[in-house]
């Protein structure tokens, strides 16, 4: 079944090449998204056996991720249809195809149980997402794509080196160096620590580049700034999540190998540093899409910070992974609509969004409040859980810095967001033809609804699954 789930999008991608009409083709996306989501839910609800093998399989951790990603892609695919229809004269053959391939590779990366296979899948994600960035085909998007591709590939190369190191530490441990995660975790105590540490550093930097942790984040603002908002949502919610999943898997191995102190302090440092960098660049940020990119950097920092803190922090950051992804969906898609309506992503040209696009503007504002951790939205609980864990762990400095960063980020972000949302729209903006349609608004509303839901009611199955995942990460052989 899992294999099918990977193959279907690939197949559709192939079909996408075949279809001629620029207007019919986009329908493949909702189709693929729906199928994928259907299969996922069937599997998670236990209707269908996952039927994994040694290479593809489900464990408590990637179950959660799979469900989340499938949902994310489903909503984005609905939006994508509306978006592409709204730009009929922009050729979307390659876009559609690579979007579907991207989905396939995401799924593969999630379900992969083998170190090498996962690496291949993640690299494939990077490559298949490159054309997505280049959708607008102007010099700026070209530059963004170039940077994204090269930096991403370097990062992934480092990850590969790290994988080799890990394998070598297994080899040196004298065990038959299989690179299946289950074996690695089981045999972890025998791994040779020097190699393991070096491996983790490389892997962390490598996949951290994909996550966009500072200082490896440099591709992010360019890529998110130039790509269509839809792609931004998928990268910020999907690709980064995959990379985070990878980091989690290696953290699990280090943890099983009883060699976690260094790893944790490293994660805390990088996490705080990412938040700080994001804060620096969010103050007086005049470009609201780049602002979202930096916000993504910040939240990646929060994720690894939570893991580094440990304890309840792990649960917190797993929950935050979902909250952040969904909220980013709201923000990026809403930003995309605003961008379409105003034809600019500079704050100077954009104002009064809530009057020009009442629904989108309101959603953008709500998404901003959500992402900055205001109750009763979901992110509040995850961030608060992480803070709690830090305080409970007696790490008052970490907690203090965490809060300071959150504050600075809020100050910076709010001035930009308010400038966009409030005030009077310019005549040019009012003249532009764009209107909110069902396909471009409904997905955002659903996203926001989910974020709100996670704030007022975390479904018990979900929280159970998250707790299992956290336990799974902390598992000691």
């Amino acid at each position, binding site marked *: 079944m899992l294999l099918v789930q990977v193959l279907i999008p690939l197949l559709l991608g192939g079909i996408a090449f075949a279809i001629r009409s620029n207007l019919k083709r986009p329908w493949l996306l909702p189709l693929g998204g729906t199928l994928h989501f259907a299969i996922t839910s069937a599997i998670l609800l236990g209707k269908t056996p996952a039927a994994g093998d040694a290479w593809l399989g489900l464990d408590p951790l990637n179950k959660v991720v799979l469900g989340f990603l499938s949902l994310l892609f489903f909503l984005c695919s609905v939006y994508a249809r509306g978006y592409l229809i709204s730009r009929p004269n922009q050729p979307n053959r390659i876009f559609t195809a690579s979007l579907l391939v991207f989905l396939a590779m995401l799924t593969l990366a999630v379900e992969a149980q083998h170190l090498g296979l996962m690496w291949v899948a993640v690299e494939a994600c990077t490559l298949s997402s490159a054309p997505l960035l280049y959708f607008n085909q102007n010099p700026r998007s070209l530059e963004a794509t170039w*940077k994204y591709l090269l930096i991403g590939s370097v990062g992934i190369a*480092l990850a590969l080196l790290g994988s080799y190191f890990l394998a070598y530490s297994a080899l040196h441990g004298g065990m038959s160096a299989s690179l299946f995660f289950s074996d690695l975790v089981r045999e972890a105590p025998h791994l040779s620590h020097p190699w393991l540490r070096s491996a983790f550093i490389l892997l962390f930097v490598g996949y951290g580049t994909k996550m966009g942790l500072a200082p*490896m984040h440099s591709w992010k603002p360019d890529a998110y700034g130039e790509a269509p908002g839809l792609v931004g949502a998928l990268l910020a919610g999907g690709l980064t999540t995959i990379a985070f999943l990878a980091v989690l898997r290696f953290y699990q191995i280090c943890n099983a190998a009883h060699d976690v102190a260094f790893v944790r302090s490293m994660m805390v440092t990088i996490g705080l540093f990412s938040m700080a960098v994001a804060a620096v660049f969010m103050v007086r940020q005049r470009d609201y899409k780049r602002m979202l990119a930096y916000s993504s950097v910040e939240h990646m920092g929060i994720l690894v910070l939570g893991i580094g803190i440990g304890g309840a922090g792990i649960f917190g950051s797993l929950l935050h992974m979902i909250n952040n992804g969904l909220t980013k969906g709201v923000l990026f898609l809403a930003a995309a609509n605003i961008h379409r309506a105003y034809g600019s992503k500079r704050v100077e040209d954009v104002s009064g969004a809530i009057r020009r696009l009442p629904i989108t503007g309101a959603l953008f504002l709500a998404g901003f409040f959500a992402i900055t951790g205001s109750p009763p939205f979901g992110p509040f609980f995850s961030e608060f859980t992480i803070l709690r864990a830090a305080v409970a762990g007696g790490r008052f400095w970490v907690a203090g810095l965490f809060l300071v960063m959150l504050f600075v980020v809020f100050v910076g972000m709010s001035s930009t967001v308010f400038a966009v949302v409030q005030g009077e729209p310019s005549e040019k903006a009012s003249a532009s033809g764009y209107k909110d349609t069902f396909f471009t608004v409904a997905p955002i509303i659903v996203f926001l609804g989910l974020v709100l839901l996670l704030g007022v009611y975390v479904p018990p199955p979900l929280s159970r699954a998250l707790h299992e995942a956290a336990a799974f990460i902390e598992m000691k052989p």
Partner: protein
Amino acid sequence: MTDWLVIAGMVLAAASGVPGLWQERERGGGERLATGLMVLGALCGIVGAGLAIAWPSAGIDLGWPVPGGRFAIRIDGISALFVIQIFLISALGSVYGLGYWKQSEHPRDGRKLRLFYGLMTAGMALLVCARNTMLFMAGWEIMALAAFLSLAAQDDQRTVREVGYVYMVATRLATLCLFAMFALLFTATGRFDFAASGPINSGTATAILILAIVGFGLKAGVMPMHVWLPGAHASAPSHVSALMSGVLIKMGIYGLVRVLSLFPHPPLWWGQLVLVLGCVSGILGVAFAISQHDFKRLLAYHSVENIGIICMGLGVALLGRSFGNSTLVVLGLGGAILHVWNHGMFKGLLFLSAGSVLHATHTRDIDELGGLAKRMPWTALAFLVGAVAICGLPPLNGFVSELLVYLGLFRSAALPQGTLWLTGALGAPALALIGALALACFVKVHGAMFLGEPRSQHTDHAAESNRLILVPMAVLAGICFLVGLLPWVIAPVLDRAVLAWAPELSGQRLMVLAPLSWVSLLGWLLLLALLVGAALFRRHLRAKPAATTGTWDCGYVAPGPTMQYSSSSFAQTLVGLFSWALRPKVTNPDTRGLFPHPEAFTSSVDDVVLDSMLIPAAQLGTRVLHWFRWVQRGSMQAYLLYILLTLIVLFFWK
């Protein structure tokens, strides 16, 4: 049962604005429906809370599947008073809004405003009833955001946007402090409910206190942390200002009271700190108020002052608790809570009447007004009642609560303990100073707005506002009188509050400790005497009809409106006395020569903390951060270098 009533009130209030959203812009049906729902919800809430006072509520405790969350609601003596106040003021405000913010006059933002107004009410009601920190935070932030959004309803005006930004930043800082505080609280007690905990080690306790004072103080507008308050209150629609100033800022007080109730044995310096903060806030607040030209800003600064008085009461209560002295606790907390209530009433009244004036004259500048008492007699009367009440003069409600605080201060001054009583001894004169200054300020503003001759043509077309605006004001004025004349009705309720705050020290009854019956008696007598006197005076006038002429101006032939003593000149000496804090900007052109050009003397007072400290600091910080931008310089080589360096650093760190 009672709890469910209150919850029903919350739901109705929250939903009040929703149906209107489907009304088209110009039709007014939505607003009436919204008001109806709001009033209905308010009734539910008030009845529920009232019952909860009579028969303490069992409370509700349902599962709430979010991390650390339980849907725990309980209404004790403290909550009940706040609930009643919240629902009362917001219901009156929403009726007032019918006349003041007609949908037909405000097609763009009317619906938004009503929606967030209801949400704000619901959020406040939720947070004062919540017994679970997560639920509290939820209510808190709903309130904060709704307040921001209803403040920003007129976001097409630049000043409103700026004010909203300042408010938002301040309230977020507060929220983050509360994050930290609740996290500490959880670590110390291991639980998410406001349960009186075991001994908390002093370090944590101190941290919690500081965070609570900053976090809640920001919301309440205690002096150094009041920065958002004047602007916000001035720019918001008046019934929203009334709700914000009358109720919303009190949520900070509520939080402080609730959190402090967790500490059975606070160190002495806690009480002293709160008391001193109160004095500073009170004196400087009123000093700033005197120097304002915008009457809504002036009222806003008076909120700062009254919050100061409330804090003084709270400080006395804390002192009492650390001495284990029940008298001080009862007097101090009773005074504080009662003043919270009273301030809600008379400040609401003042803002509503100010709004009525604004509605009629479209100016907020005191020196543009004058002589309105003839054109808007009822508004003038309402404002006068509010003014007398806020100055804490008998026989109105302000006097009762200030009396309690005074008694607390005097009692603490009479304490035998070493030199600790000095704080109390200094508190009483400070309160006296505050009272006198407030009196000066309100005589000035009332005189300048309503008495004398008009100073500008703004007042020419001023006419008395309609009933929808007047009735809520009348109700509030009535309450001011009732509380002032029948304080003993409230006393048992306050005893309940004390019981909820410090159960171990709630032995004594307020009636015994404070001469409330005397106050009530003398109040009635005073009114009686005044009426009799008035009757006699009138008889005398009928006997000897009075002639009317122009004001006699020491033989000056043509006294004109411009020759009146303007409010600025009225306040000049006092502003001079406080110039060390107010830093007034004065332009005083010297007029020399035989025929000097027409010149104008102007003096204005900015908010020292905001305009001369925070904003420059923020700009500096921005510049510093901007300097880091070169890191993101667009060169790929640099970016790859960062990755390399990270690797190297990590490998060396390993």
